[in-house]
């Protein structure tokens, strides 16, 4: 039987030939992502900035201008209306999201306000139904954003410590640099595309951290093994051997995970699309960063390969031009 092979069995690709270019590109990408984040900002959902969203569904096409006009007289401040496109839903379902800013002096939406909005929308689309109504007070949203940052920070710290304990500090710096890279690029992408950034996206970012570290650790594990096996060879060669040896596994796992995620992205409905999109993107950049960020950092930092002569060795390998 012929087996499916993503790559040939024995590869000897030099992953670190262009280390400066790839690492440089990653650095530039991170800087760009940060710049975009700070200039364009994120399209925060109500989880993070308070307010109310109504999800509407009607048989008639969504007329954003008419919806807006209907709600104009209510004096609710900033209102945003966006139509939701879903390739899997049929023509009888036209879904829109209406977001209303947090009202002065109110924690969550009052029933009167929601009734007024629903009444106004019914005048333009009589058969409209409201499939979900969510409201978050400014107090809670402030706390949620804090918790979210705390969660991401705590995850990075926990991983830094775990990898440090299991491997060496150079590995843990490399791993966390890769994770940082993945997180920033994900946030940057959400900022450029202005995709709604809400609580599930934070969960997605943490999942990306989990996936990316998984990938990084597998290669580190092999590197550790090979460092013992090939004591005399240069760090760069050993790293190349390790990445090549684990390459087919890396591609297989990314492949199966991406297969599952793409199914979910296309067929899973629009409610979790942002969430799945973040994870899909994260799997791609996570796989990239395991090799090109984590390993490069380890290569730059060097690895202490002999316990008796600590200082000499780390200096020696740190000088290798990558």
């Amino acid at each position, binding site marked *: 039987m012929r087996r499916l092979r993503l790559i040939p069995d024995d590869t000897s690709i030099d992953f670190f030939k262009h280390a400066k270019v790839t690492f440089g590109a990653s650095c530039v990408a991170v800087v760009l992502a940060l710049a975009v984040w700070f200039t364009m900002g994120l399209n925060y959902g109500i989880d993070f900035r308070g307010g109310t969203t109504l999800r509407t569904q009607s048989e008639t096409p969504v007329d954003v201008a008419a919806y807006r006009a209907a709600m104009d007289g209510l004096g609710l401040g900033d209102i945003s209306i966006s139509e939701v496109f879903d390739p899997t839903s049929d023509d009888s379902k036209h879904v829109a999201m209406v977001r209303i800013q947090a009202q002065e002096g109110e924690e969550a939406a009052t029933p009167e306000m929601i009734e007024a909005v629903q009444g106004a929308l019914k005048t333009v689309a009589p058969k409209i139904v409201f499939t979900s109504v969510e409201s978050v007070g400014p107090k809670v949203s402030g706390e949620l954003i804090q918790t979210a940052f705390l969660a991401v920070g705590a995850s990075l710290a926990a991983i830094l410590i775990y990898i440090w304990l299991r491997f060496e500090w150079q590995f843990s710096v490399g791993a966390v640099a890769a994770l940082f890279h993945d997180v920033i690029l994900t946030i940057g992408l959400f900022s450029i595309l202005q995709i709604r950034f809400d609580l599930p996206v934070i969960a997605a970012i943490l999942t990306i951290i989990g*996936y990316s570290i998984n990938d990084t650790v597998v290669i580190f594990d092999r590197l550790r093994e090979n460092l013992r096996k090939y004591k005399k060879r240069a760090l760069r060669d050993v790293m190349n051997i390790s990445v090549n040896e684990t390459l087919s596994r890396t591609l297989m796992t990314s492949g199966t995970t991406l297969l599952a995620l793409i199914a*979910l992205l296309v067929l899973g409905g629009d409610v979790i699309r942002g969430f799945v999109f973040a994870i899909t993107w994260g799997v791609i950049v996570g796989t990239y960063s395991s090799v090109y960020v984590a390993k490069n950092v380890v290569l730059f930092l060097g690895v202490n390969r002999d316990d008796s002569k600590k200082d000499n060795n780390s200096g020696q390998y740190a000088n290798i031009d990558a």
Partner: protein
Amino acid sequence: MLQIPVWKRILIILTCVLGLYLALPNAFYGPVEQHNDALKAIEVAGSTPELEAQAALWPEWLPERLVNLGLDLRGGAHLLAEVNVADVYANRMEATWPEVRDALRSITPVRRVDAPEGELRVRINEADKLAEALAATRTLARPVQTLTGAGQNDIVVSGAGDIITVTLSEGEKQATDERTMQQSLEIIRRRIDEVGTREPTIQRQGSDRILIQVPGIGSAAELKAIIGTTAQLTFNPVVNRGADENASPGLGNSLLPDAEAPGVFYIIETAPVVTGEELVDAQPSFDQNGSPAVSFRFDTTGARKFGTYTAENIGAPFAIVLDDEVISAPTIQSAIPGGSGIITGNFSVEQSTNLAVLLRAGALPAGLTFVEERTIGPELGQDSIDAGKIATTVAFVAVLFFMWATYGLFGFFANIALIVNVSMIFGLLSLIGATLTLPGIAGIVLTVGMAVDANVLIFERIREELKTAKGPARAISLGYERALSAILDANITTFIIATILFVLGSGPVRGFSVTLGVGILTSVFTAYFVTRLMVVFWFERARPKTITV
């Protein structure tokens, strides 16, 4: 070499069987749910043929625990309420005032003066008796009844000039907050139980918040109507009735609006004669004119107080006050000794039924502010379930095919392990009563993708070991051994993330972390032990000279 002791084999097989057994009810979600609901209904209200028929939909001897569906899948309402714990401080001070007055009466005449909320200020006539008065007031203090506040008194008394200030101590405030939260939880639970919905979640969150999730309810507004009202019922003496909303009520009195007629205000004595806490029952009923009303009955102490008061005040009006609004202010026609009565107002039948529910369940000790609310319609939930099912199936089939195409027979073993894995996830989730949310489904799909990772690691390793030509048995056994450290490290780090998500997340995110964590445990088990057992079984029978992975 390739050997697994018999007891281990049996243990692995038993674990799989148990997982599948526990997951079984989820494959028949509808009937099992009806069966469970029917059993509950029979327990509460006795048996009917219909309920018996529903209960018979699922055999008694099979497991009946299901994965709970989260609000985003089932539809329902979610509320996060903040309890205004400071409300209670003011009430406490209100109750302390008569005690202070009585304690100081023999020393010097006193007068209550205005003070910020939660503080009691008293002016004494003779300022030189301050020390004596302070000492007398301090005798009212009682030790705080908690572990943390041990050694503290419940009130702090201080004096300056001719003013004595009484506040609650920090320890007592904490103890009071704790009690307020416990009572609020209990009363919200009772109110929701009275309405009788399925599996509500009522949980304390943080120091002063309560999370309420009720599946199947139409909207958060409906839920708020049930739990949002404090329902503090009091019977107070009426001092005056008027139309001036700025009238000065005088100390010890309050000015309250009429619940129905706008512009009508009552001045009442703030200290109530009896309160709703002394009610033992409340039922919706009708008055002599046939309008909806609520009939009630007091407990013995309440009945005695009410009886005495009505006997002494025939001809005077008294106010029935609900949450700072006067519902009605009838004139006392005769003494009411029996301790039961009827509240009339301009109620609709629905309002009187609701009021009866609220009075039966008891008053909330403090007001609630809703800081977050979500309503998810059942159709949206169903759409999500449908989309989730299709996506999971497609993802599953694609991964199965991919594995088989790449690893052949070994891929087939991994596929069986994957199927067992997903079943075990459902089994475990049912066992611990976890809630499946939409991100949770995504978590399962992600697990499907990632679970094969451990097998990929092992198989790739076996391939490598085969290259050094040690013979198939040795290669397989080395492959499993040497892949283990990578598998463990990779999964432990992911598990750390799942734990952090669980601790810090809430709602759907927490649901996701549970499925992710459970998925890691089961996937390591199935990918490592289950596939190994299958490989060993196959190897023992086939005894191949060469293998291709």
